[in-house]
C-alpha cells in the first residue's frame, strides 16, 4: 500500500502520541497507581504501534508493542511502577522520537532496533510476578481477536448482519457467488480517541479493496467520508481471499479498535423488501438492529464484549480527549493570508486618507462606509492573528521531563513549576522560542541551583525550585525563568570577564552591577568552572540573546546573590502589523510602536536639567533622559520650533524610560511592517518601514535601541 500521502498525518499524530505518552509518564512517577494515566499511556502506545505498523515501520512497531505489553501488565496490576522502569520508559520515548525524526527527514525509520530497550522492557515484564506471562495473553488484543472471531451473536459486533441489501447489491452478490467469490460482512470499530475517523475508514476501505470489492457499507460511503458515523461501520465485501486475511488487513490500519466479520449468508440477510428477517434471528436481535440504525449511541456504549478490558470502557469518560472540530493548515497558507490582510490594510489606509481629503458634507456616506471598512479590516486582522496564535504549551511541555533528566544527571534535587502554559504567541515565535528557553532552564539548573548540601547549609529547602511563568502584558508576552538558587555572583563574572579579555580591569572597576550581569550575554563567555555537558560551553547566553532579538524581543536578568535570579524574555505578540503612533521629526514622518510608549508629555524647556552633561527631565518622581530625535535621525530642525515647549514621547524598555523629542504628533495608526531590505540594514534605530495611506513610505523607529 502506498502510504506516502499519509506521512504527514502520521508524523503529526506520532508527535501528539509521543507527547501524550510523556506527560502521563511524568504523572505516573508521582502517582504510580493512577489508573486513568495508565490507561492513557496504554492507549497512546497502542495507537503508536498501530500507526507504525500501517506505515511499515517495523522497528518502531516492535518497540511500541513491547511498551504496550508492559503497560497492559501494569494495568492488570501485575507490575508495579518503579523509578527505574520510568527511566526505561523515557529512554523508549527518546528512541521513538528518534524514529519519528528519522522518518521526518528521510521517510525511513533507520536501522536502529533498540534491542537493549526491548530487552529491558522484557525484563520488566518477566520480573513482574510469576503469573504475569500467563496473564499477558488475555490482556493483549489477540484475546480480543479470538473472542471477536468467535462471533458472539449479540451487540455491535454483528452490525454487518443488519445491512440492508437492495436489488442491485443482491444481483452483484449473486454474480460474485457464481464466480466462486465469497461475500463477507465486516464490522469495524474505530477507537474513540481517533480524530480523523473518515481517514481511518478510508484506509480500511482501501485495505479491503486490495483484497476484494466492497459492495455496500452502512453508513454509506458518502456519510463515512463526511464523518457522519460514530465509531463503527459495517460493510459487505466480496473476495476470493479467506476472511482472516480481510480482517487482518483492516486491523492493520491504525487506531482501529476491532474488526469482526463472518461469511455472509445471502438467504439470512435482510432484504430491503423481504420480510424474512426472522430467518435465523431472534426478536432480540431485531431490536438491536433497530437501535443500531436509529440510535448509534447505544451501539457505541454497548459494554465491551468480554471481561478482558473492563477498565477500558469504564474509565474512558475521564481520560477521553475532547474531539475538537479542527483543521490542520499549512503555516505557509496562513502567511499568504496574513500578507493579503496586510495589503488590505494598506489599501484601507489609502482610502481613509483619500476620503479625508474630499469635501466632508457631500461624502458623509463614503466616510461612514470607510469607517465601517476600517473596523472590519481591524477585526479581520485580529482574527487572522488569532488563527496564527498557538499556546506555548507545545514548547514548554517537554521541559518537566528535561528538568527531571537534568536532576538525575547533575545529582541535584529540583522541581520545575510552570504557569501560563496557555499563553499564546504567534506560531513563528513559538517555533523559535524553545531553544532559548531550554538554555535558560539548563542554565538555572546547572549554574543557578546549588547542590543539596549547600542548600541545607544555607537554610534553604533541599529541593531547588525553578519556575517558568508566562503571561501577557499589553502587546507583549513575558516568559520568566526563575530559580531560588545562588543568583549571579557579579564578582566572579567580573573576574572571569577580565581573565577572558572581554573587559579590562579598569573597565571592570567602573561597571555597575547591571552592566556586569549583561556581560553574561557576551559571546564566548561562560563562568562555569567545570564544563559540563549541560551548559558551560560558552555558546549559550549570547545565542539566547541574539535569538530573542531576532524575534524583536529582549532578555533581562535580575539577580540577587544567594537568593536566585530571574530571566525575563519579552516578546511582541505579533510581528507583522502593529499599532503605532505617527510623529513628525524635521518634516519627516516616523512611526513608533504603541507597545513601547508609556506616555506623551508636554515639557517646558525650563524644566530640562543637565546630569553628566546629558539632558534629563523629572517626571513623577523619576529622572528620564531626553533623546532628541533630530540628532539621532540627522533630521533638519524646523525654524518654527516652539521656543518654550517640547513634545516628548516617553518610551519604556523593561524598567528603563527615555523621552523622545519630536516635532508633532499625528495620531495612532495601524501599520504594516515592511522590511527595508537586505541592502540597507545598517541603520539600527530603524526597525522597518511602512506604507502610509497616501502611498508614502514612513520609517518605523525602534525605541528599544534608543534607550
Amino acid at each position: 500500500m502506498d502510504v506516502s500521502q499519509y506521512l504527514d498525518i502520521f508524523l503529526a499524530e506520532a508527535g501528539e502520541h509521543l507527547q501524550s505518552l510523556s506527560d502521563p509518564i511524568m504523572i505516573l512517577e508521582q502517582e504510580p497507581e493512577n489508573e486513568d494515566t495508565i490507561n492513557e499511556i496504554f492507549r497512546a502506545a497502542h495507537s503508536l504501534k498501530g500507526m507504525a505498523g500501517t506505515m511499515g515501520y517495523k522497528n518502531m512497531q516492535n518497540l511500541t508493542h513491547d511498551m504496550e505489553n508492559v503497560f497492559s501488565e501494569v494495568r492488570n496490576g501485575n507490575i508495579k511502577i518503579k523509578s527505574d522502569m520510568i527511566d526505561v520508559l523515557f529512554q523508549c520515548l527518546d528512541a521513538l522520537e528518534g524514529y519519528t525524526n528519522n522518518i521526518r527527514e528521510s521517510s525511513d525509520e533507520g536501522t536502529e532496533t533498540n534491542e537493549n530497550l526491548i530487552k529491558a522492557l522484557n525484563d520488566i515484564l518477566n520480573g513482574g510476578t510469576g503469573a504475569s506471562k500467563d496473564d499477558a495473553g488475555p490482556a493483549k488484543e489477540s484475546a480480543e481477536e479470538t473472542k471477536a472471531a468467535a462471533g458472539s451473536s449479540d451487540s455491535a459486533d454483528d452490525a454487518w448482519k443488519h445491512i440492508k441489501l437492495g436489488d442491485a447489491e443482491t444481483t452483484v452478490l449473486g454474480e460474485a457467488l457464481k464466480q466462486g467469490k465469497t461475500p463477507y460482512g465486516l464490522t469495524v470499530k474505530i477507537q474513540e480517541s481517533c480524530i480523523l475517523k473518515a481517514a481511518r475508514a478510508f484506509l480500511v476501505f482501501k485495505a479491503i479493496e486490495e483484497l476484494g470489492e466492497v459492495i455496500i457499507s452502512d453508513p454509506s460511503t458518502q456519510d463515512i467520508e463526511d464523518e457522519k458515523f460514530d465509531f463503527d461501520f459495517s460493510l459487505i465485501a466480496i473476495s476470493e481471499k479467506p476472511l482472516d486475511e480481510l480482517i487482518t488487513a483492516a486491523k492493520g490500519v491504525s487506531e482501529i479498535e476491532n474488526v469482526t466479520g463472518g461469511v455472509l449468508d445471502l438467504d439470512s440477510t435482510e432484504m430491503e423488501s423481504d420480510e424474512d428477517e426472522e430467518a435465523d434471528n431472534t426478536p432480540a436481535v431485531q431490536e438491536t438492529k433497530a437501535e443500531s440504525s436509529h440510535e448509534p449511541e447505544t451501539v457505541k456504549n454497548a459494554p465491551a464484549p468480554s471481561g478482558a478490558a473492563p477498565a477500558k470502557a469504564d474509565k474512558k469518560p475521564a481520560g477521553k480527549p475532547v474531539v475538537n472540530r479542527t483543521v490542520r493548515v499549512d503555516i505557509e497558507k496562513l502567511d499568504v493570508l496574513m500578507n493579503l490582510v496586510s495589503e488590505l490594510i494598506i489599501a484601507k489606509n489609502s482610502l481613509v486618507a483619500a476620503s479625508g481629503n474630499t469635501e466632508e458634507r457631500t461624502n458623509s456616506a463614503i466616510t461612514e462606509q470607510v469607517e465601517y471598512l476600517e473596523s472590519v479590516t481591524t477585526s479581520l486582522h485580529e482574527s487572522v492573528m488569532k488563527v496564527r496564535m498557538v499556546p506555548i504549551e507545545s514548547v514548554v511541555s517537554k521541559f518537566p521531563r528535561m528538568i527531571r533528566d537534568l536532576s538525575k544527571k547533575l545529582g541535584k534535587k529540583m522541581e520545575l513549576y510552570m504557569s501560563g502554559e496557555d499563553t499564546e504567541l504567534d506560531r513563528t515565535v513559538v517555533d523559535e522560542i524553545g531553544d532559548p528557553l531550554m538554555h535558560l532552564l539548563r542554565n538555572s539548573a546547572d549554574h543557578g541551583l546549588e547542590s543539596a548540601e549547600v542548600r541545607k547549609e544555607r537554610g534553604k529547602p533541599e529541593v531547588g525550585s525553578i519556575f517558568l511563568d508566562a503571561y501577557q502584558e499589553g502587546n507583549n508576552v513575558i516568559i520568566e525563568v526563575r530559580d531560588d538558587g545562588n543568583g549571579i555572583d557579579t564578582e566572579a563574572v567580573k573576574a572571569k570577564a577580565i581573565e577572558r579579555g572581554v573587559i579590562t580591569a579598569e573597565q571592570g572597576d567602573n561597571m555597575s552591577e547591571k552592566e556586569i550581569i549583561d556581560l553574561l550575554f557576551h559571546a564566548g563567555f561562560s563562568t562555569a568552572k567545570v564544563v559540563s555537558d549541560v551548559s558551560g560551553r560558552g555558546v549559550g547566553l549570547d545565542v539566547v540573546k541574539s535569538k530573542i532579538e531576532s524575534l524583536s524581543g529582549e532578555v533581562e536578568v535580575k539577580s540577587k546573590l544567594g537568593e536566585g535570579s530571574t530571566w525575563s524574555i519579552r516578546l511582541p505578540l505579533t510581528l507583522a502589523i502593529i499599532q503605532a503612533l505617527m510623529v513628525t521629526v524635521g518634516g519627516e514622518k516616523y512611526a513608533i510602536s504603541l507597545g513601547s510608549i508609556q506616555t506623551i508629555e508636554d515639557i517646558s524647556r525650563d524644566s530640562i536639567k543637565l546630569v553628566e552633561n546629558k539632558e534629563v527631565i523629572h517626571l513623577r518622581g523619576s529622572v528620564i533622559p531626553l533623546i532628541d530625535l533630530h540628532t539621532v535621525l540627522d533630521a533638519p530642525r524646523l525654524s518654527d520650533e516652539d521656543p518654550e515647549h517640547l513634545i516628548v514621547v516617553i518610551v519604556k524598555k523593561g524598567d528603563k524610560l527615555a523621552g523622545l523629542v519630536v516635532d508633532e504628533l499625528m495620531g495612532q495608526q495601524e501599520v504594516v511592517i515592511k522590511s527595508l531590505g537586505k541592502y540597507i540594514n545598517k541603520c539600527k534605530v530603524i526597525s522597518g518601514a511602512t506604507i502610509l495611506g497616501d502611498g508614502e513610505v514612513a520609517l518605523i523607529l525602534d525605541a528599544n535601541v534608543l534607550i
Partner: protein
Amino acid sequence: MDELSTISTSIQYIVVKLGEERFGINISYVDNIVRMQRMTRVPEVASYIKGVINLRGEVVPVMSTRIKMGLEPDVETSATRIIILKFEQQGYIGFIVDAVNEVVTLNADTIEKVADSNKDDAFVQGVGKSEDGLISILNLNALIDEQI
C-alpha cells in the same frame, strides 16, 4: 543579420543617460522603470542612498547612480527616471538616471572588455558599439558593492 547566431550571443541592454555619456544596463536585471517620485530619507546610510520608495506595496531602496560613480549630484528633470533592478541576493534596488533612451541588442563579440578595470572605471565592464555611438556597459555588481 544572421538571426541564428545573434540569438545565442546577443544581449539586450537598456540605454540610459548620465550626463552626456550613454550607459547600458543588462535588461535581464530590469524589473521596472518608474518616474521620479517622493522618497523617504533613511538616516545613517551611505550618501548615495537617496531613500526608499513604495513600489507596488514593497519598500525599495533607491540610490543615486551619479553619486555612487563619483559624478556630479543629480539634477531632477522631467526625463529623470528610476530604474528598478532585481538582484538575487539584495532584492529590488532602484537607480536614478538622467534619462532612459532605448533598448539595443548588442552582439557579445562587439563588446570590448575594459582591460583590467582600475578604480575609476570599476563600474564599466565593457564598451559596446551601436548605430548612435559607444555605450558603456555598467557593471551592476560593482554598483551595489558597498565597498567601492
